[in-house]
C-alpha cells in the first residue's frame, strides 16, 4: 500500500461488514473536482477529513470501452437522466470516485473578467472578481499541470476547426486541459487508459489520503443532521456499486459539513434533510445549464476522428455573444445515436463516420432556468427546465455559426440536429433553412454543465450561500460545487468550481 500519514485510507464496498460510525473535523460529501480540492486542502491544513463518495473507484480494468455501457456504469440513472417541463434536455452526472473528472474531457478554462464582474454586480458579491480568484486558479492549474493541448495530439478533426476559424477570421486556440502525456486516443469519456488525464482519483484524492484524509466510497449521504443553527454530521447508507442496493447505515459526526455532491444531489440532500438551509426558498431553484448543440459533418477526406484529443480546439470569439464553440469526439456508438434516418441511409451515414467531425456550441442560456426537486422515494432528483425565447434566438445563432464554420472548413455534408429541418445540408445556401424560427424543443441538445441550484448571493433572502460557500442559515455548513455559481460562467465550469472550492477550503481552515 501507499505510504500515508496515520489515518489516511480508502474504503471500498467489499470492506463494509456492518453499520459505520465515524467522526471527523470535516466531512466532505462528494469526491468530484470541487470536493476533492476541499478534502486535499483541509487535510494538508491538519484537519481530520472524511471524504464520502457514492460511487466506487474505477481502475483501468473497470473501464468499459463501449460508450453506452460505460455511461451505464459511470453515470447516474445510466447516463439517461433528462429534464422535463418544457425542454427535454439529457444531462449527465457521474457516480464514481473523482466524479465527473473521471469521464469528462478535462477542459479547464478561466472565465474572462467580465463574467465575474457580472456576478459581483448582479449578486452583490465583494470578493469574487477575477483578480480575487486568480491565485486560486493558479494553485489548481499548477497542481494539475494544466496546459494547452499539444499540436501533435490534435488530430485532423480538431485542426479542422482551426482551419475554419482562420478562413473566417475568427480567433481560435488549443484547449487547456488537466492532462499530462496525452496520446490522443479520444477516450476521455470512457476513462483514460493511458492514465494521462489528471482526474481527481489520480491526483487530489491520493494526495488527500497521503495527508491523512479517509475516503469512504460506496456511501450515499441521505441527510444532514442539524441542531439549532449548526449542523452536527450526516447520515446515509452503504450502496452497492451499479445496482445501488442499500445496506449498512453510516453515521458521521463532524464539526463542519461540506456538500460537494453536485448541482442535482446537493439540493436533494438538503430537501431530504427537512428543507435545510432554505430560508431563502432558493434551494433547488434557478437551475441553469449550458445546453450544447452538436453538429456532425462529413468531409471529402478521411478525418480519422478517433485519433486526437477528445476536445482539443475551441474558439472564444463568440463568448460575449453567449456561446462557445469547441470540437468534440465521443465513442462511435454514442455518435451513431445522433445520426438521423434509418435503413440504407442510416447505414451509409454510419459508414462515413471515419470522414466525420463533430463540433458543438455550449450556449450560456442566462435567461433560462429550471428547478431541482427530490423525488418522494430515493435520492434521485426530478428536474424541470424551460428555455427562454431569447435564448432560443441564441441557440439558432450558434447553430448558424457552426454551419458556417463547417462549410468554411470544407465539409461536404452537415447533419443539423433540428426536428423538421432536412436531414442533410450540402451548402450554405441549403443551410438558410436553419435561420427559420425554430423552437428550442426542435433542437437535439444535451448538457453536462449545470449550475446555480444553491446559488451564492450576499443577501440571505436571495441566495443559499455567501461567496465563500458558507450557508446563510447554518454557520458550519458549506456548499462548494458548481451549484453555488450565481450564473453560468460562460465557459466549461470545472476549473472555476475548483478555484472557488480552493478558496472555500482556506476559509474553512481558518475557522476550524
Amino acid at each position: 500500500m501507499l505510504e500515508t500519514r496515520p489515518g489516511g485510507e480508502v474504503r471500498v464496498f467489499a470492506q463494509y461488514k456492518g453499520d459505520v460510525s465515524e467522526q471527523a473535523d470535516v466531512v466532505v460529501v462528494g469526491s468530484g473536482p470541487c470536493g476533492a480540492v476541499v478534502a486535499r486542502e483541509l487535510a494538508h491544513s491538519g484537519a481530520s477529513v472524511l471524504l464520502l463518495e457514492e460511487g466506487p473507484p474505477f481502475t483501468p480494468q473497470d473501464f468499459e470501452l463501449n460508450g453506452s455501457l460505460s455511461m451505464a456504469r459511470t453515470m447516474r440513472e445510466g447516463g439517461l437522466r433528462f429534464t422535463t417541463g418544457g425542454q427535454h434536455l439529457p444531462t449527465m452526472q457521474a457516480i464514481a470516485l473523482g466524479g465527473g473528472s473521471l469521464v469528462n474531457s478535462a477542459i479547464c478554462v478561466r472565465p474572462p473578467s467580465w463574467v465575474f464582474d457580472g456576478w459581483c454586480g448582479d449578486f452583490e458579491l465583494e470578493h469574487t472578481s477575477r483578480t480575487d480568484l486568480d491565485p486560486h486558479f493558479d494553485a489548481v492549474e499548477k497542481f494539475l499541470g494544466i496546459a494547452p493541448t499539444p499540436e501533435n495530439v490534435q488530430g485532423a478533426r480538431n485542426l479542422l476547426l482551426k482551419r475554419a476559424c482562420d478562413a473566417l477570421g475568427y480567433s481560435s486556440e488549443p484547449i487547456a486541459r488537466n492532462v499530462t502525456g496525452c496520446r490522443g486516443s479520444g477516450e476521455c469519456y470512457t476513462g483514460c487508459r493511458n492514465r494521462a488525464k489528471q482526474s481527481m482519483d489520480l491526483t487530489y484524492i491520493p494526495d488527500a489520503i497521503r495527508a491523512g484524509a479517509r475516503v469512504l466510497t460506496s456511501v450515499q449521504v441521505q441527510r444532514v443532521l442539524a441542531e439549532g443553527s449548526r449542523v452536527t454530521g450526516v447520515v446515509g447508507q452503504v450502496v452497492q456499486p451499479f445496482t445501488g442496493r442499500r445496506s449498512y447505515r453510516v453515521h458521521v459526526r463532524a464539526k463542519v459539513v461540506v456538500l460537494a455532491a453536485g448541482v442535482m444531489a446537493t439540493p436533494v440532500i438538503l430537501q431530504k434533510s427537512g428543507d435545510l438551509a432554505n430560508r431563502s426558498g432558493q434551494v433547488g431553484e434557478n437551475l441553469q445549464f449550458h445546453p450544447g448543440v452538436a453538429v456532425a459533418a462529413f468531409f471529402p477526406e478521411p478525418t480519422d476522428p478517433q485519433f486526437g484529443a477528445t476536445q482539443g480546439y475551441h474558439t472564444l470569439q463568440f463568448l460575449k455573444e453567449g456561446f462557445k464553440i469547441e470540437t468534440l469526439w465521443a465513442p462511435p456508438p454514442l455518435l451513431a445515436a445522433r445520426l438521423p434516418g434509418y435503413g440504407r441511409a442510416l447505414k451509409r451515414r454510419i459508414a462515413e463516420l471515419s470522414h466525420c467531425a463533430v463540433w458543438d456550441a455550449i450556449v450560456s442560456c442566462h435567461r433560462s432556468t429550471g428547478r431541482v426537486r427530490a423525488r418522494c422515494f430515493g435520492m434521485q432528483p426530478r428536474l424541470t427546465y424551460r428555455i427562454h425565447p431569447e435564448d432560443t434566438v441564441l441557440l439558432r445563432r450558434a447553430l448558424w455559426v457552426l454551419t458556417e464554420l463547417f462549410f468554411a472548413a470544407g465539409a461536404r455534408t452537415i447533419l443539423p440536429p433540428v426536428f423538421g429541418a432536412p436531414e442533410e445540408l450540402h451548402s450554405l445556401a441549403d443551410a438558410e433553412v436553419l435561420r427559420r424560427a425554430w423552437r428550442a424543443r426542435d433542437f437535439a441538445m444535451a448538457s453536462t454543465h449545470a449550475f446555480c441550484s444553491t446559488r451564492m448571493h450576499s443577501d440571505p433572502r436571495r441566495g443559499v450561500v455567501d461567496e465563500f460557500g458558507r450557508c446563510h442559515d447554518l454557520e458550519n455548513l458549506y456548499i462548494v460545487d458548481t451549484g453555488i455559481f450565481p450564473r453560468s460562467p460562460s465557459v466549461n465550469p470545472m476549473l472555476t468550481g475548483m478555484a472557488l472550492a480552493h478558496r472555500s477550503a482556506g476559509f474553512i481552515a481558518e475557522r476550524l
Partner: protein
Amino acid sequence: MIAVFLKLALGVLAVAAAARFFAYPRPRGRYCYLSRCAVAFAEAASDVLFPPGGEPVYSGREVGIPDFFERYFAALPRRTRVLFQALFCLFEHATLFFPAPGHLGWRRFSSLSPEQREAAIQSWHASRLYTRWLAFSSLAALFSIAYVSHPAVLRQLGLAPRATRTPIARADLLYPPIGRGPEAIAYTEADLTPPSDGTPLRVDAPLHPAFAEGFVRAPERIS
C-alpha cells in the same frame, strides 16, 4: 341468445388480445432482461433499421442486436430498463393505432411482412408530430448504439479501440477492482511504471484484443 353471443364475442376478443400481447415464440437465445415481446420486436426492427446490403456489410440481424440490448439493459437502472421495454412494447403494438398499409396491417409489428414493417417505421420517421418523432428518434438511437457497438462493425469502420500500454500510477496502489477488497490490489511500489510520454497513438496501432475478434457472426470483410 344475445347474452351468449356477447360472452362468445368477449371470449374471442380476450383470446385475440392475449395472442397479440403475450403469445410470442421462445427466443433463440436466453434473455433475462428482455421480454419475449422486446426480443421479437428488436429482431424484426433490426431488419428494417439496418437491412442487408451496402456499407457496413453487416445487417442488424447479423450483429445480434437483441444480444447487445440484453447486456445494456443489465447495466441500466431498473427504472430506465422498464422505460425502454415500454418503448419497444409501444412500437410493437402501435400498429393498432397507426396500422401499416396492406392486408392485416394492424397486427403487431413483428408479425407484419417486411414491406409493412418498412412502411410502419417510415410513418414514424416522417411524422410531423413531435412526440412521435421523439419516440422514433429514441428508438433509432438505441438501435444505432447496439449496431455500432458490434466489434465487427467498429472494425469495418476503422473505429475499433486500439491496444495501449496502461501505465501503473501511484493511485493504482490504492484502489482494488470494483467488487473486490484491498487484497485484490495487484501492485506494489516496485510495479510503478513511467507515466505516458505523450507519443500520439498511430492509425496502424494494433486493435484492442476485445475488438480484434470475437462476437462475430458474419464473415469478416474489412475494407
